[in-house]
């Protein structure tokens, strides 16, 4: 038996495969395709205090090896999440990560406080490129990142993950700021701000004009950032960005990730997470690795 268990800030995941926020809703639909117990953790769609309508459609465009989205954090609000989604997910033997995306520091504090220990981990999204207030505005400034992390952490009953934006000059600086603010773990990357224009209509494909790029196209950027961040902190890292196969999981772990999240792949194939998990186990098997920890940060840098 290969040991797949990993530890994120004291929370034990039975395997390193997590769903990426916003690409899995709250698990109900996918639970018709496989048993959610297969997952190390489920990270749910962004939660805001009040319901949020989201952006005007079209909200998606296909790009070379990737997609652009501009959903704009559409969700039914915290109260609905607590009343309906937590009890649903608790039926499964997996961990719950709540992705919180308030517009203000106070809103995020309030959400964290009310979630208490009903979830296993909180992921603070300071990196959404698709909203005007909050979002990426928090996560591109180290001072604000530190401040928001510190304040939200004071309201968290469970470990806090800070989700970093790739839309910065130096992600190490932001990672350090989150660590100084008291983050227990870091996740990266959120989507890369992008744009597509239809040359016939001269209009952007997305009604929001710009959107967040994800999928295989972003993977090299994400792996580089996971590696850079792992070189300056000992906090556990959840790596994501373009994971489509078991080997992609291994690549992120070699770069320094303790666990990984699978996003866009779920949109292509509902069973992506379990397919990827199987492939990852095969990779470990074929390479005679009997504990995933052997590959974490094991890249042999030139």
């Amino acid at each position, binding site marked *: 038996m290969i040991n797949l268990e990993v530890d994120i800030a004291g929370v034990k995941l039975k395997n390193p495969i997590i769903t990426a926020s916003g690409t*899995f809703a709250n698990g109900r639909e996918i639970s*018709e395709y496989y048993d959610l117990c297969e997952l190390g953790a489920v990270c749910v769609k962004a939660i805001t205090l009040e319901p949020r309508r989201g952006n005007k*459609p079209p909200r*998606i*465009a*296909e790009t070379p*090896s990737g*997609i652009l989205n501009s959903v704009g954090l559409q969700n039914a609000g915290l109260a609905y999440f607590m009343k309906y989604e937590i009890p649903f997910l608790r039926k499964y033997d997996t961990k719950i990560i709540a992705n919180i995306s308030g517009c203000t520091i106070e809103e995020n504090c309030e959400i964290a406080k009310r979630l208490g220990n009903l979830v296993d981990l909180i992921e603070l999204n300071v990196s959404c490129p698709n909203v005007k207030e909050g979002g990426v505005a928090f996560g591109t400034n180290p001072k604000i990142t530190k401040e928001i992390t510190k304040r939200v952490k004071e309201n968290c009953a469970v470990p806090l993950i800070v989700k970093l934006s790739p839309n910065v000059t130096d992600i190490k600086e932001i990672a350090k700021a989150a660590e100084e603010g008291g983050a227990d773990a870091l996740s990266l990357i959120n989507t890369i701000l992008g744009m597509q224009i239809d040359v016939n209509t001269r209009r952007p494909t997305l009604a929001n004009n710009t959107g967040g790029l994800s999928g295989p196209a972003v993977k090299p950027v994400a792996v580089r950032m996971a590696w850079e961040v792992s070189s300056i902190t000992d906090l556990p890292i959840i790596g994501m960005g373009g994971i489509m196969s078991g080997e992609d999981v291994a690549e992120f772990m070699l770069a320094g990730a303790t666990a990984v999240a699978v996003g866009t792949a*779920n949109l292509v194939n*509902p069973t992506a997470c379990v397919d990827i998990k199987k492939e990852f186990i095969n990779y470990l098997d074929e390479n005679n690795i009997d504990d995933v920890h052997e590959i974490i940060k094991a890249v042999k840098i030139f």
Partner: protein
Amino acid sequence: MKKTHMCKLISKKTLAGDVIDMKVQFPEESKPGQFIHVSCGDGVLLRRPISICDAGADWLRFTFAVRGKGTKKLAQYNTGDFLNILGPLGNGFSIDKKGDKTPLVIGGGIGIFPLLYLSKSLGAKTEAILGFRTKDLVIMEDEFKGTCARVHIATDDGSYGHKGFVTDVLKERLAKGDISSIYACGPSSMMAAVKKIAEDENIYCQLSLEERMGCGIGICAVCVCKSKGEYVKVCQNGPTFDSKEVDFDD
């Protein structure tokens, strides 16, 4: 548990111009109005949503216009090849609301495809209004004649059938007063017009909507339309909606 299917392509035809008609082996039952989400092959990341045009016990048929990268690639598959298909997805048309007089199906361009299977289920009284740009693009007329009591064709340039929009034919046809329900699929300008006409006449109307999709199963929330001021998912809450539930205000 639900899963994706590897489906053998058992026949492939070219209808007018760039419209391809495919029949595949398919293990699940489906309802008129549902769609499939098809992998187009290497280099095309997202699946493409295509309506179920007809179906039987162990097969289904879909028809698509070659438009961009995905449908170009899909058109290259040949009989004997396997297609990766997710579905059937979405909610079918509400056939139980057809009323006791004449049900009418109305479609423009690629919007006519889901209406064939539907017209079979609506019964022999059904009439169809089908719109095309020009005579050379008129397809499936005989098939609709096989399932409907009458088929009205409209072309934008008047080269075949009525000259003008399907909605012009609709208004004329409604004047007789024997239409008890309307089922429509087509471009959103047409849908907005059909909705208005049906609601002014107080006739039950259902629309099948199109929006750019991601997952097709309700997890990514990109393919939304506006319903009573809120955004709802076309793939999961639709693609069929009672016209009264859909807002076309922007």
